[in-house]
Structure formats: structure tokens, C-alpha cells
């Protein structure tokens, strides 16, 4: 129980604690601060609070309030023009449906809360370890965690079973990163070890920041025995992590339950609304205004009528006592509000929700978006954004893990001027490598990685023949790297590499007989063709972004000293001995070919050194490395000095494997006028490479601009130049289009208009330039230029920049954006964009958790957009158009009748008809339409991606189409009212009895209306499934059945005042006259629409009409994959390495390897938290053989 003061403080807004102070093992001290316990609660209601709270929540929705007010109005007898049940019945139905859904959701939350809260953990209580439930854990408790346990709260790491007090944690649930992270305890606490005694007397005091949601930062101090130690993020285990490779560890609870960073990060996801939502809200408000206007007109009409005629009629109908004409007009105003309330139909919102939910289910159910390898179906996590999928204009995509699989495979190489890795047929033509082709058999090599695939037998033969160049080539690959080997079992080697490229190369060497076996700080052991050779590691000349190469200097057992170097082609090229020129030419040719195939290439070279030179160099190296000033520069000079006059060995080509179907998908999306921006943390070259590989950049583009400026001016200049090249006649100033939006069109927004561009262009911009370009003054310039290009690639961007780019486009372009990504670094952009798509099936879930839709593969995006999105949009728009039409038609008839009934707010229809119209008679056909309608089936949708474009321009539902709707319903209502009026008002039944009475007229009108609106849906439906038929004809049948029921004797006897229409249906619908009127009315309502539509189809058919027309005539087209783009002959340098910094120091660090052989080497000590770092670090280290797809 928290004391009242706590709540009081919360109420007063004082809940923000500035700083947190806690003491280990001192519950009473910690309790005095009333920190949150470790119990979490994501549920919203309990049994008692459910009804009031849920009703409260529901009545925060405007629509429900509106109907509640209507209901209250209807209870006032002076005003009530419709009985209370016309509003109460729909309202109750709507409220209860929503209520049941909410209750169901909340029960699920309760269950998961209970499950989480009841997990157990060992807590140190009174000097003993005791199993406690998570929910009972409190701030200041000391916990002991075991391997593979979840971390229950945010802990300060105290000690661990591992050397140096390290622990390894997996943070996949937290940030989506799959690699293990290392945390290290303070030495002072680490000394406590596993000593329970020591812990029970431990009274450290922690002073740290208040609870917040920053995963990458932690600040605080620990005071032990009067000494204060600084705490940072490395000392903290966060809730949501899992302990790995660590036998046990101790931790001190700092933040519990709702205060943990995990909980602070979750649940506050922004509620996204679609454009249609916005538009709908505006329209509903407009309609409300319109309603008020009409009611004002009618009440003025009433006061005029009352003065002129009504006063004379008071003999028969006296005024209400004490009510003047003005007051009665005022009452009439409200009465008309009730009568005409159907213009703002309650069922609109409910139906929209149902439609979206249904369309979400179709996404979940789609087999063509199911990924069998990972057993992952597509998932619509947000069920309210479907139709926006049909309006996407910009896609922002992550690269690694999204476009690419983040798997590197050693694909080709060129050794001594001879290319390997490709297959040729007998006539010497290149053969495409297919999966089923025979693979190279590596069984001769016991240590070979079985997952490694290679198809070219000649390379193996060359190696086995003992070709010295080939040997040197693979020896280099086996020696020159920073990979750590891990041998769990005898003969089962695992490589831990910090970049997948390295791992791929070392694995290749391993399979070709040069098995990198183990390393110590001074030696590297390589199994060379079955023979163990121990090389002495003299120096590692580490990789850096500037150097773009790395070298090792080794001494072989024979005493030969060699420098092995691998690096970017340009860099190595400059440093080759002239004797290699010829070889370089041949290799360069291969390199260009590889680059053309989108492969990442490295050039390998070596140099023999003599002992005496090396001695001198080493001495200088040592001096330089301990120098206090200019250490870096001096080292660089030294490296530069030794890495020259090298001899070329060859080149490797590593494939950064694209996900399946990526190029084709991108091509399709581009056809659909969707612009694709790739935002990646990778280097420019890599990104560009992938861009070409997956068709984002194409060789036939007019030009690809590269912006790399390092100052704002330079960036601006480059952008301007690019723009002028694309569109020389473009105005200097961007043209902004102003438009009004929001409530009552009061919010003014500015949008950047597109400039017209001929031809296709691409733009590549790097992170630092982007930083300048995203500044306020350059933002427009950037967007203007970038939006003229077909594709934009931003490289070296931070997660924050990703979100900024998306935000900028959202702000200045009236376009719908979609972000797709898989990693934690994509979360920001996924959350920012209108629609976020997460790639699921990866181990990390962060992106998926914050996404609106999750897919297993990038290629499913085309189906999600071109099929599901398009259909959803089409359906939603058809629904809205039809819905407004039917309600306006329904309502406007009242308006015309007002002129005949003295503006007395007499409704035209039977009360029960008004009640059931939206709920029963017309609900299902339109629901079927908006769930099942398709213009063309999915095959054709793929075949004509252009079908997607109308959505981008809001073509199906906009203000114009809304106005057309109003006009049509106005026309309909005129026909619907005046034709029956003229035909009926002076006539009688065939037996001379009454038919021009109010009730018969109402029945006639109702029947006409029902037939007309159903005929309209008949015209609107393009795809008639059995369900459509059933609903349509069923609704008609239901109308007649219910009408006769409402007019039946039985109901009248029970409630004579509620069912006054006794016998009307029987007496009026058996008249031929009635049916002649119905027929004429319906013809006049429907035929003009048919005629107009026919004319439009003939004269200016839309793309849908065209494709539908084609579909009627032609067979289903086979989806033809366009031939791959012609091979490019550019000489791009495609050196690629996904390193950011070298880890050479670590590899040869004596201190680290010395103490005790760790189970897992500390190779990936994060310098920064990955969230803050430029690029994703997740990868799989071993080339994986793709599994065979399961046959179905």
C-alpha cells in the first residue's frame, strides 16, 4: 500500500523523481521512497472497474457521445420525433460489441501479466537465498541469476562466475540485437564472488538517474565503504535480457516493474491514424455542420409555417401550453436533429473497424505471404491501417536483414589472373548456377565446414595439385583476419567474426584446406592441407575506414617473414610492385565483373620481408605505439611505409546474399510509382553495390548523383547541381502548395509539389551530408532534389537520422510513407512512418514489436502493397462512398417531406425502419462488398503494378467524390420522394380504399429506398462471391420479412403504440400501382448512374477499367520475370567490408587472453551501445546452406 502522499504527489505532478537513492539489503530504507515494486500491470480493468471504466473509455469517442446526446434528446417528449429505441438499440449493440472485445483483450493481458509476475528468482533474504516471485522483488534486493534466465528487473551487476566479472547477455527482446553483449561488474563488487555471507552484509548505496526509457545510457554511483565508484551502462543488466554463457551472477535491483527501461519503452506506442481516418473525421464534422444548417433552415421554415398556417390550425391541434412559436421552432430544431441524425451514422465507425479487421485477417491468412522455412506467416499487428497500404508513395527500407539476408558467401575468386567460381558449359558459355547443381565435395578435408557450398571443381583441383599461388592465396585468407576460433567439440570448429565478410573468407580458406585452427596473442595455428603449421604473429596492421585494408606480418616455421595484406582494390593497387602490373590488369577485369554482379570484392597481396628491415621497423613501431603525441599519425606512416611494393595474389568476391526475390519486388514497386529510399548504416560503397544488385539503382538510369559534402554549403551546392541537371527549367524556389486540413479546414499545411523530371535518376547521400541536409534550411532543398529521383540511398545514417528523413518526407510531401526494417536501429523510422513493417522471423523482435505489419521476407511487401493494400484501399473507398450515399439518400427524403408536413419533424419512415436501416437492411451487403471486392485478382494486380497508382493520388475517395456522393444522393432523394408523391397523393387502391395515407406512403418509400440502395451496391460490386449474393438477396428478403413482421397482428397486440403500422404492408404492397411506382422510381434512380458510368468507361476508362476489360478477354498472364539488367561495365570500386573499426588490438591483447581461457572471447566488446552506433551488428557467422523449401 502506498500512502496517500504518494498519490497526492502524483496528482500534483510531482511523480518525477529527480534521482534515485537506494541501499542494498535495506528494505526499510528503500521502502521509504516508495519506489515501484517489480510487479507489472499491463491490464486496464478488473471485474469491478470494467463496466464504469470501459464505458468511460468508450464514451470518450465522439461518435458514442453524439449518440448518447441524441438518446437524451429523444427522451424529452417535446422534442422526441423518433422514439428512443431508434438510437438506443444501435448504441447498445455497438457498446456491447466493443465491450466484449475489450474484455477479451484485457483477459489476455491479465493472463500474461500473471504469468510474468509469477516467475521465480533467487533473492537474498536474511542471509539466505530464497525463491521469490518476480512481483515480490523490491528495489534494493540482491538477486542471483542462473544461466539462460531472464533478468527480472533492471539490475546493477555485482559479480559473476566468469573471469573479470563479465557476463554475457542477449538483448534480443530489448533491442532486437542478436549478438551477445558483455557487461562487466565493478571490481569492488566482483570480489564478493559467490559469497552469500559477504553479500548479506553488503550495504552499498546506489545513487542514480531517475527511471527513463533510454536503453543506451545509465548514470549513477555506487558507494561502498565510503568509496564512490562510477556506474555506467556496462554495469547494468536490463529487464528483458537473457543471461547467456554465464553460470551465475549477482545483481542489485535498481529499477523494478514499471520503472524498468523495458517497461518505460513499451506501451507508449503512438496511435496511428490513416488519411482516410482524418478525412472521415473532417467529413463527419462537416456533415454535422451541414446537419445543423439544414435543421436551422427547417426550424425557420417551421416558424414561418406556424405563423402563416399553423396558427390557423390550432383549432385542431392546440399549441402546447406556454410555448411560443419561437420556442416551438427551437424544439423543432432539435426534433429535426433527431430525425436527420442518420447523416452521421453510428454504424460508420463500427463498420469501418469491422472492415479493417476483416482485411487484416486476410493478410494474416495469406499463404503467399507465409514463409515456410521459418514457419512465419505475415501478420497485421495493427488492424486499423489497412487501406493506407494502398496509398504508399515512399518506402524507406533498411538494408541489412531486410534487402539482404546478412549472409556472406564466398562466391568467386581470381587467383593469379585466373577466375574461379563460375561454371561453363562445353561451348564455353557461362552457366547460371542453380541450387541443384553438383557441389564440390569437401569430404577429403575433415575440418571442412559442411555448410559451405562451392560449385567450381577446378579450384579444388588447383589447390590439391599444390599450385603455390593458390596456396598463398588461401594461406593469406587463413592468416590475415581478426576471427576467433571456438572449438566446442573436437573437430567442430566455430568462427566468431566481427563481420560476416571475414567469417566467409576464413571459412572458404578452411574448406580449401587452410584451416585456421587457433590463435594466441603471438601465434596463429593453421592446418595447411592436413599439416599443422604454427605461424608467429609479428604484427597486426589493423583495419580502419581510412586505410581500407588490413595486414598481418607473420613468421613461418621456416623463418620466412611475410606481410599479408587484403583491402580495397584502389588502395592495394597503388601499393603494388610494378611487376604485378600485368596481373593487376587481368585481376581488375575480373574485379569489374564481380562488381557488376554486385559482389563485395577484396584484393589480396603479400610481400616478403627480410629480418633486418623488420627489426628496425618493429622498433620504430614500438616507439610510435607508446608515443604520447601524434601516435595515430606516426603509426599510419609506419604502416604506409611497410605496405608497399607488394605482390598481387588475387581477389575474392563475396556475395552479400540478397533476400529472395528482392530485385523483382523492387522492380514491381518501382513500376507502381513507389519511390524507394534505402537508409542504411553501411558504407557508401556497400550500399551502392547492393543498390545495383537489387535493382534500386540501374545501369540505365540517366545519372546517379552522389552527395558527400562535408559542409552545409557544399551539400547545398551538390544538391542544387543535381537538381539543375535533372530539371534545368525548374524554378529556383521550391513551389509550395498550401492546403487546408484538420478541423473545419482551419489548419493550414504546406506541401512541396513535385517537379517534373524526365528520365530516371538516383541519389546517394552519406550520413554526414545528410546531417547537414536535414538542417532546417536545407531540408527543403534535400527533399526537392531527392523526390525528383527515382531512388535515394542514404548511407551511414544513424537510427535518429532515419527517423528524421521519414519525418521530413512526411512533413513536406502529402504522401503516405512506409518503413521496413528488421533491427532495433529501424525502430525509430518504423514508428515514425505512416506504416511500419517489421521483418519477422529474425531472432530480434524489436522492429516487429513496434511495427504495424510484420513480414517474414522483403519480397512479400509487393503482395502486401499491390494486392492487400490496393484491395483494402479500394474496398474502404467503395464502402465510404456507398455508405455516405445510402445515408444521405435516406436522410434527404425527410428534408423534402418537411415541406409537406408543415416542418413538424414528422419522419417519413416507420420508426422501426429507421432503427433497422443501417443495422440490418443495408449493413451486410456493403460489408460483403468491402470485405470481398476485388477489381482484378492478384495475378493481374502483379501484372499491372500501375493499378496501384490511383491510391497514391487518393483517387477513389476524396472531396470531389464526396461531393459527387452528395449530389447523387440528393438526386436520388428527389426521385425517391417526388415520384411516389406525385403518383400516390391523389389515388386510391383498386378497391377504392385508402392508399395515400401516411403509413402506406412510408412503406412505399422504404421499399423504393431499399431497392435503390441495393441496386446501387449491385452496380458497385465487381466481385460477386456467393457471400455477396447471399447478403444482398438475404437483406432484401430480410427487409420484406421484417416489414411484414413489424406490421403483423401479434406485435401490435403486444405493443400497440410501438408497432402502429399494423397491416400496412399487406394492404399496400399487394397493389400493382405500388409496384409500378417502385419500378419507375428505381429506374430513374439507377439508370442515370449506369449511363454515366458506361460513358466514362467508354470515353476515358480508368486503369482499373482497362485491366478489367483485358481480364475479361485474355487468359491469365504468366508473371514474367523481366530479364536481368544488362551487365554493367562501370569500374566502380566495390571494396566492401562491413567493419567499422579494427579489433586487432584486442586479438593480440596479452592481458585479455592471459588470465584464463574464456568460454567465449570478448571480441565484441561494444564501444557504444548499438542503438547509438551507425550500423547493425547482427549477422550469422557461418555461411548457411539454404534449406530446401518444404514441399507442400
Amino acid at each position, binding site marked *: 500500500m502506498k500512502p496517500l502522499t504518494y498519490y497526492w504527489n502524483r496528482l500534483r505532478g510531482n511523480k518525477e523523481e529527480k534521482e534515485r537513492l537506494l541501499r542494498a539489503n535495506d528494505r526499510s530504507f528503500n521502502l521509504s521512497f516508495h519506489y515501484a515494486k517489480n510487479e507489472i500491470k499491463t491490464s486496464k480493468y478488473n471485474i469491478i472497474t470494467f463496466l464504469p471504466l470501459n464505458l468511460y473509455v468508450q464514451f470518450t469517442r465522439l461518435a458514442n457521445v453524439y449518440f448518447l446526446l441524441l438518446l437524451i434528446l429523444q427522451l424529452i417528449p417535446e422534442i422526441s420525433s423518433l422514439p428512443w429505441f431508434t438510437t438506443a438499440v444501435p448504441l447498445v449493440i455497438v457498446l456491447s460489441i466493443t465491450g466484449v472485445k475489450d474484455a477479451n483483450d484485457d483477459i489476455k493481458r491479465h493472463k500474461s501479466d500473471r504469468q510474468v509476475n509469477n516467475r521465480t528468482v533467487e533473492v537474498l533474504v536474511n542471509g539466505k537465498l530464497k525463491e521469490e516471485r518476480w512481483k515480490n522483488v523490491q528495489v534494493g534486493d540482491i538477486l542471483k541469476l542462473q544461466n539462460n534466465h531472464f533478468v527480472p528487473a533492471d539490475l546493477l551487476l555485482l559479480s559473476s562466475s566468469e573471469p573479470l566479472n563479465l557476463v554475457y547477455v542477449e538483448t534480443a527482446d530489448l533491442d532486437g540485437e542478436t549478438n551477445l553483449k558483455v557487461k562487466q561488474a565493478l571490481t569492488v563488487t566482483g570480489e564478493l564472488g559467490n559469497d552469500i555471507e559477504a553479500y548479506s552484509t553488503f550495504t552499498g548505496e546506489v545513487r542514480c538517474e531517475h527511471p527513463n526509457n533510454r536503453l543506451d545510457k545509465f548514470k549513477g554511483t555506487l558507494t561502498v565503504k565510503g568509496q564512490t565508484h562510477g556506474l555506467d551502462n556496462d554495469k547494468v543488466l536490463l529487464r528483458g535480457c537473457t543471461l547467456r554463457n554465464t553460470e551465475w551472477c549477482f545483481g542489485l535491483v535498481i529499477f523494478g516493474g514499471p520503472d524498468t527501461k523495458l517497461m518505460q519503452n513499451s506501451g507508449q506506442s503512438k496511435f496511428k491514424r490513416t488519411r482516410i481516418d482524418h478525412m472521415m473525421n473532417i467529413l463527419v464534422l462537416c456533415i454535422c455542420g451541414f446537419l445543423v444548417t439544414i435543421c436551422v433552415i427547417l426550424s425557420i421554415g417551421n416558424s414561418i409555417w406556424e405563423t402563416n398556417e399553423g396558427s390557423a390550425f390550432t383549432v*385542431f*391541434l392546440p399549441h402546447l401550453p406556454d410555448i411560443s412559436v419561437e420556442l416551438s421552432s427551437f424544439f423543432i430544431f432539435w426534433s429535426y436533429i433527431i430525425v436527420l441524425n442518420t447523416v452521421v451514422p453510428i454504424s460508420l465507425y463500427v463498420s469501418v473497424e469491422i472492415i479493417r479487421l476483416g482485411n487484416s485477417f486476410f493478410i494474416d491468412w495469406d499463404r503467399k505471404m507465409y514463409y515456410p522455412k521459418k514457419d512465419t506467416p505475415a501478420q497485421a499487428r495493427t488492424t486499423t491501417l489497412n487501406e493506407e497500404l494502398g496509398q504508399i508513395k515512399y518506402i524507406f527500407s533498411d538494408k541489412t536483414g531486410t534487402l539482404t539476408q546478412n549472409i556472406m558467401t564466398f562466391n568467386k575468386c581470381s587467383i593469379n589472373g585466373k577466375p574461379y567460381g563460375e561454371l561453363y558449359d562445353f561451348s564455353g558459355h557461362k552457366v547460371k548456377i542453380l541450387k541443384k547443381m553438383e557441389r564440390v565435395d569437401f569430404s577429403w578435408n575433415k575440418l571442412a565446414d559442411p555448410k559451405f557450398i562451392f560449385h567450381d571443381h577446378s579450384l579444388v583441383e588447383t589447390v590439391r595439385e599444390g599450385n603455390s599461388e593458390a596456396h598463398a592465396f588461401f594461406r593469406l585468407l587463413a592468416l590475415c583476419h581478426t576471427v576467433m576460433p571456438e572449438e566446442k567439440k573436437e573437430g567442430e570448429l566455430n568462427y566468431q567474426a566481427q563481420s560476416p565478410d571475414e567469417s566467409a573468407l576464413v571459412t572458404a580458406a578452411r574448406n580449401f584446406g587452410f584451416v585456421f585452427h587457433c590463435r594466441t596473442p603471438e601465434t596463429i595455428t593453421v592446418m595447411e592441407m592436413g599439416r599443422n603449421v604454427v605461424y608467429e604473429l609479428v604484427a597486426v596492421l589493423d583495419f580502419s575506414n581510412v586505410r581500407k585494408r588490413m595486414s598481418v606480418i607473420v613468421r613461418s616455421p621456416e623463418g620466412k617473414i611475410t606481410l599479408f595484406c587484403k583491402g580495397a582494390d584502389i588502395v592495394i593497387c597503388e601499393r603494388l610492385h610494378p611487376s604485378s602490373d600485368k596481373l593487376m590488369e587481368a585481376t581488375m577485369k575480373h574485379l569489374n565483373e564481380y562488381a557488376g554482379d554486385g559482389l563485395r570484392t577484396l584484393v589480396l597481396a603479400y610481400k616478403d620481408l627480410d629480418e633486418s628491415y623488420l627489426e628496425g621497423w618493429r622498433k620504430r613501431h614500438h616507439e610510435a605505439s607508446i608515443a604520447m603525441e601524434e601516435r595515430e599519425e606516426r603509426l599510419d606512416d609506419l604502416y604506409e611505409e611497410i605496405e608497399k611494393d607488394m605482390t598481387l595474389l588475387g581477389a575474392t568476391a563475396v556475395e552479400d546474399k540478397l533476400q529472395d526475390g528482392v530485385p523483382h519486388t523492387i522492380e514491381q514497386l518501382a513500376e507502381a510509382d513507389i519511390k524507394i529510399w534505402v537508409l542504411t548504416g553501411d558504407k557508401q560503397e556497400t550500399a551502392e553495390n547492393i543498390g545495383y544488385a537489387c535493382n534500386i539503382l540501374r545501369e540505365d538510369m540517366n545519372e546517379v548523383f552522389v552527395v558527400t559534402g562535408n559542409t552545409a554549403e557544399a551539400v547545398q551546392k551538390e544538391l542544387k547541381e543535381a537538381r539543375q541537371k535533372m530539371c534545368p527549367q525548374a524554378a529556383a524556389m521550391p513551389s509550395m502548395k498550401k492546403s487546408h486540413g484538420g478541423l473545419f479546414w482551419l489548419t493550414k499545411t504546406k506541401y512541396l509539389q513535385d517537379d517534373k523530371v524526365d528520365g530516371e535518376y538516383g541519389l546517394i547521400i552519406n550520413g554526414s551530408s545528410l546531417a547537414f541536409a536535414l538542417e532546417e534550411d536545407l531540408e527543403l532543398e534535400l527533399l526537392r532534389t531527392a523526390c525528383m529521383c527515382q531512388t535515394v540511398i542514404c548511407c551511414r545514417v544513424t537510427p535518429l537520422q532515419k527517423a528524421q528523413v521519414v519525418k521530413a518526407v512526411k512533413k513536406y510531401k502529402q504522401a503516405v510513407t512506409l518503413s521496413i526494417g528488421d533491427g532495433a536501429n529501424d525502430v525509430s523510422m518504423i514508428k515514425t512512418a505512416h506504416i511500419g513493417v517489421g521483418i519477422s522471423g529474425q531472432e530480434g523482435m524489436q522492429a516487429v514489436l513496434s511495427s504495424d505489419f510484420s513480414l517474414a521476407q522483403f519480397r512479400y511487401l509487393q503482395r502486401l502493397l499491390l494486392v492487400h493494400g490496393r484491395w483494402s484501399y479500394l474496398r474502404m473507398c467503395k464502402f465510404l462512398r456507398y455508405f455516405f450515399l445510402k445515408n444521405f439518400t435516406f436522410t434527404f427524403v425527410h428534408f423534402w417531406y418537411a415541406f409537406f408536413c408543415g416542418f413538424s419533424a414528422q419522419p417519413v419512415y416507420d420508426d422501426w425502419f429507421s432503427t433497422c436501416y443501417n443495422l440490418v437492411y443495408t449493413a451486410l451487403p456493403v460489408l460483403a462488398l468491402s470485405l470481398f471486392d476485388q477489381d482484378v485478382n492478384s495475378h493481374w494486380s502483379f501484372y499491372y503494378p500501375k493499378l496501384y497508382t490511383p491510391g497514391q493520388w487518393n483517387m477513389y475517395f476524396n472531396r470531389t467524390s464526396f461531393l459527387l456522393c452528395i449530389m447523387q444522393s440528393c438526386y436520388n432523394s428527389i426521385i425517391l420522394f417526388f415520384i411516389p408523391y406525385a403518383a400516390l397523393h391523389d*389515388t386510391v387502391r383498386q378497391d377504392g380504399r385508402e392508399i395515400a395515407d*401516411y*403509413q402506406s406512403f412510408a412503406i412505399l418509400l422504404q421499399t423504393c429506398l431499399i431497392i435503390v440502395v441495393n441496386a446501387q451496391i449491385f452496380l458497385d460490386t465487381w466481385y460477386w462471391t456467393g457471400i455477396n449474393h447471399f447478403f444482398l438477396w438475404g437483406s432484401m428478403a430480410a427487409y420484406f420479412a421484417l416489414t411484414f413482421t413489424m406490421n403483423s397482428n401479434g406485435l401490435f397486440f403486444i405493443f400497440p403504440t410501438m408497432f402502429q403500422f399494423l397491416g400496412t404492408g399487406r394492404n399496400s404492397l399487394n397493389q400493382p400501382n405500388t409496384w*409500378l411506382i417502385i419500378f419507375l422510381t428505381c*429506374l430513374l434512380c439507377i439508370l442515370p448512374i449506369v449511363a454515366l458510368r458506361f460513358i466514362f468507361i467508354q470515353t476515358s476508362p480508368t486503369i482499373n477499367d482497362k485491366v478489367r476489360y483485358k481480364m475479361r478477354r485474355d487468359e491469365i498472364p504468366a508473371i514474367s520475370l523481366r530479364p536481368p539488367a544488362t551487365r554493367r561495365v562501370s569500374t566502380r570500386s566495390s571494396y566492401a567490408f562491413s567493419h567499422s573499426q579494427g579489433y586487432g588490438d584486442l586479438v593480440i591483447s596479452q592481458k585479455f587472453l592471459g588470465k584464463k581461457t574464456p568460454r567465449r572471447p570478448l571480441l565484441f566488446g561494444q564501444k557504444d551501445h548499438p542503438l547509438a552506433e551507425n550500423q547493425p551488428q547482427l549477422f550469422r557467422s557461418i555461411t548457411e546452406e539454404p534449406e530446401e523449401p518444404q514441399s507442400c
Partner: protein
Amino acid sequence: MGKEKSKSGPLARRPDNSAFKQQRLPAWTPMLTASTVLPSFYLLALICMLLGVWLLLTVQNTQEMKVDYTEAGSCNLCFEMRKNVSNAGQKCTCMIMFSIEKAFKGDVFIYYGLRNFHQNLRRYMDSRDDGQMLGRKSNLKSPSSYCKPFDVDEKGVPIAPCGAVANSMFNDSFILTYYTINGPTVVPLLRKGLTWYTDKNVKYRNPKMDNLTLPEVFEGTTRPPYWQKPVYQLDPFDPNNNGFINDDLLVWMREAAFPNFKKLYGFLYRANKPFTKGLPAGNYSVAISYNFPVQYFKGRKEVVLTTVSWFGGQNHFLPIAYLVTSGLILLTAVVLTVVWWKFGKDGKNMAD
């Protein structure tokens, strides 16, 4: 591998391959094409034309005669008299002469017509108690509040039937006379069977009699203020046509949809000559007991004689509307044909 029923194994989460879930339901995909639209337009034009002609011929065979007697002839006096409310109790009769040029053949119906009388005002329409008129005893003694101010009289005695509708019941009566060479003959009128079957037999009932007479049943209630007779004396000739099932009352209680309406007064009794074939041509008079005041609301009253056809009374609107519609559809059809000929025939527009 067949469809997996048990959700386990490697493909546990694979969606079902049903046509419904995969949105592959077999479907009919209609489209507005020339081959369907154009013929149907021509066909509809033809149908409308035929219907229009048929209806027109039918309507031509019916006859209707309206005699406005509000201020006509001697009724002028009554009209003036009724202007004064104090004369409400006094009787006033008047007579109107008219002649029929062409004999009315077949059944002839006599209506009274009212103009500018708003039976369709909301409060007026609501001012009735269906429960009371269904013969519910409780409602008889305590009429619904909707009947206000015609629910109880000044003394608090409940009014039966209550409400503004019943109170304002039309109470003129007509005697139609045919002038033959042999002198005037009263035209025999049937004044029963004027209502829908359901109204007479289901919707309206007298309270349970329990061996009581009708006046006894209605004891403790009073007549509506504007009525001269209590509800159980509406028809002096037929005791079974009294109370809540009086035909005239029921006709009146079926409220008209529009301010100008006519309501059935009676029909020609064709048993005797010269009326066996309907109303012969010649001179007629109608004697009116002029009770219903219309001057307050600038209303008009009329007597309407009409014959009916299979689709009801004489109404020229429908046949003409059908003929006009037919013309419009034909015109549209021609326009559509031209458009199709010029644009759509070769399918050039459709080619991408």
C-alpha cells in the same frame, strides 16, 4: 503433403489453403459492357413505353369528378355561419348542383376531399391512443398522455376516442340525388366496408362487452369535444358500426400523408336501376350537412366521384411519367450507342 489438420510440426502456423482465406472464392465479375448495357437500355425503353401506353389507356377509361363545395352555391351561407364558433352546435345544410357528361361505368366511389388539412403534423399524428382504440380497458379510462390536450375533459373525464386526430373527425354528410325525367332519385350509397380489413377487424376493437351494451361499456368516458354524438352513436342505423369500429372513424383515423387528400365516404349501391351499370349521365345534386369548419386554415372541401381501374383511381401522372421515362431512356440509349460507336467500339481506349 496434404492439408495439415493438426497444428503441429514445422508448418504449424501455415494458413489454411481455403478459397475463402486466400480470397479466391469463385466469383462473378460483371462489367458494364456495350453488349449488356445497350440492349438493356433499349429493352427498358420499350418496356416503359408499353407500360405507359397501357396505363394511359386504362386511365382514360376511368372517370373522376370533383365538386368543391366549400363556398359554392348555397354552401356559402353555411361557410359564413361556421366562421362564428358560437354557431358550432347549429345545423346547416346546403345543396350543390352538378352534371355528369359521360356516364360513370362500373363501381363508383364517393369521397370527401380536404385541402390544406395537415393530418401529417407530427404532434397531430401522435395524438392518438392505439391501445385505447384496440379496446384496452385501462387505456379507455386513462388515455395516453400523447392525447393531450384531448385526453380528458375539464372535469377530468376521459375522452374516448382520445386525441386530436379523432377529435377533428370529418363530420359532413352527403345525400346524392339523381335527376331523371321521372323526377329526383336518391342515389343509394353503401356506407360500410370503407376501410382496410385489418383496420376494421384487427387494429380497432371495441372494449370487451361482457354482456354489456355499447353505451354501458363506454360509461365513464366522454365524447371528444368537437363531436356532437358520443362514439357509440356514430351510426344510428347499424349498432354494429359504432364505437371504435365505426367505418367513418376508421377512415379518418388512417392519417393522410399529405395535406390534400380524399377519403372514402361510400360507394354506389348498384342493385337497382338506373344505377346497375354505374352512374348514368345527367344532372345531380348533393345535399350537404355542413358541419366541418375549414375557414380557419384556408382549407377547401370537396366531393369526389370516381371509378377505379386495376391500378386504382384516376391518376394521370404514372402513365405520363412512364412515357416520359421511356423517351428519356431511349434518348440515353441513343447517346450511349453513339458514344460506344465513337470511342469504345474498337477497344482502342481500352488498350493500355
